[in-house]
């Protein structure tokens, strides 16, 4: 794989705050997901790759050049940043056409028309963007990034603000862009979305790259870990007893709110396979199986520990 996008030993800090710490990765053609919780450093990494900021340490190369100093890189680079990112006073068509012209496209008008059609904004293209919904503005940003047919695309949470139908359409669009041979880096904090777009995932936690690999492998890392689950339904105490006897859980207690039982398991994946089988054996009917005290932070903290253990 020849690297089109490359971060080598990159750190970025703002005063006392370390946003990225010694991050290295290289990307070739295809879609790569950048997964992490809010504040993990995803936007900082994308901002460095887009040339919007300089690394405090390390080097960034995109299409063989430093994107911060070489404006020519923008002929082959398309970016959707987080935040607003559209000119409210202008129509979608005029701002997309403006950017096409400024990035050296030979026929900016035709390119703008094609980009707007690709994101489904043809009919609204001549209205002022200030009157658009958030989802429509998000699509304008995608059109801005696509209009010059770039080889590299950096998309920071491109699905934010979209309704479910639009999300599905844009997931398909991003996957198609990767299939066309472009290098696409797309950030998200939702693994399920990344899985549908990307063939490879990078996981960033607290400014550090803690895991990388295929989405299925990352999912296993996320699921197959110590978890606390609440089992709610009939005969759940009997089910919990069977789980305990099989060694799948290490502790069982009654839920303090009277909603079934709470079990603790050292490996979530094994439990997920066993529960349906043992529930039938116990004659239990499950209304709900839900994690207790889990959030993204704790999930990613587990990844950090797993990465340390595996030496990444």
């Amino acid at each position, binding site marked *: 794989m020849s690297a089109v996008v490359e971060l080598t030993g990159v750190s970025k800090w703002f005063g006392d705050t370390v946003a990225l710490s010694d991050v290295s990765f290289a990307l070739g053609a295809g879609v790569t997901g950048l997964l992490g919780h809010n504040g993990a450093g995803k*936007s*900082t990494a*994308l*901002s*460095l790759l*887009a*040339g*919007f*900021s*300089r690394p405090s340490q390390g080097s960034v190369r995109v299409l063989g050049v430093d994107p911060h*100093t070489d*404006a*020519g*890189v*923008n*002929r082959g*680079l398309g*970016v959707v*940043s987080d*935040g*607003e*990112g*559209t*000119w*409210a*006073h*202008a129509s979608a068509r*005029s*701002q997309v*056409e*403006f*950017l*096409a*012209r*400024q*990035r*050296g496209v030979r026929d*900016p008008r035709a390119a703008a028309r094609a980009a707007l059609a690709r994101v489904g904004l043809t009919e609204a293209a001549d209205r002022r963007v200030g009157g658009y919904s958030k989802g429509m503005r998000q699509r304008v940003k995608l059109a*801005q990034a696509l209009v010059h047919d770039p080889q590299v695309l950096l998309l920071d949470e491109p699905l934010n603000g979209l309704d479910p139908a639009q999300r599905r359409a844009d997931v398909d669009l991003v996957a198609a862009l990767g299939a066309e041979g472009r290098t696409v880096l797309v950030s998200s904090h939702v693994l399920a979305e990344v899985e549908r777009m990307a063939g490879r995932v990078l996981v960033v936690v607290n400014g550090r790259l803690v895991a990388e690999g295929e989405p299925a492998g990352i999912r296993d890392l996320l699921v197959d870990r110590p978890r606390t689950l609440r089992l709610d339904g009939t005969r759940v105490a009997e089910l919990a007893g069977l789980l305990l006897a099989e060694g799948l859980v290490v502790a069982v207690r009654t839920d303090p709110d009277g909603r079934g039982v709470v079990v603790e398991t050292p490996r979530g994946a094994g439990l997920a396979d066993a529960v349906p089988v043992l529930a039938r054996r116990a004659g239990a009917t499950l209304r709900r199986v839900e994690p207790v005290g889990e959030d993204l932070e704790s999930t990613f903290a587990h990844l950090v520990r797993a990465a340390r253990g595996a030496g990444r």
Partner: protein
Amino acid sequence: MGTTLFGFSLRGILLRGRTAAFAALPLLVAVVAVVVIAVTSVAGRYGVQSTLTATLLTGLVVPIVALVLGIGAFGDDRDSRTLPLLRGVARPRWHLVVARFTAAWLSTFLVVLPASLACMAVGISINLPVGHVVGGILLATALTSAAYTGVFVLLSLVTRRGLLAGLAYVVLWETFLAGLAPALRGLSIGSYGRRVATLAIPGDVPVGTVATTGVTTSVVVLAAVAVVSVVLSSIRLQRMDVG
């Protein structure tokens, strides 16, 4: 033109609501001028013409309009997070700065034009040479606008609180502190602007704080302030983090 750097920048400035709002300020000066011509004698208009041109036009209207439009040149892009989009064009950064500066300067000049025309009308009504009045006021307005706009464009790239900093500069420095000592006038854009404006004002009428330099030097200083500001803005845009 709408999709050129300059055209897109100009449309952005002219379509802003606050541009229209601040256009009322020069119109107010124009109304005052019309009233003055209507109700005062020719002799009585001498002092008024000086006040309108030196104090109101060059000392208040131009810096305030240049402040609002100059800060908006990049300040609005910082607020709406479109500055990364501008940085993401395949052109040298100084092209962006020159386009934004020129658009803000031209807009300032156009917005203050009613006040400029009103000052010319009062000057002509008191039988001053038409060439001096028109040339002096146009030159003073154009150069003072350029210098102020350049400084405020730079300020918009240096701080997110450009409007507040610029307002403090105009109110405290230009209208108050610079008048305290002759040495300080050398650091006041307004004093050079008023020196140029003296071309259009009767020689025996006081015009407030003016630079101690001649008109030619004042012209050079104002142009130099604009050029240096554009150069510094280009360097700043090249080096700053926008993400």
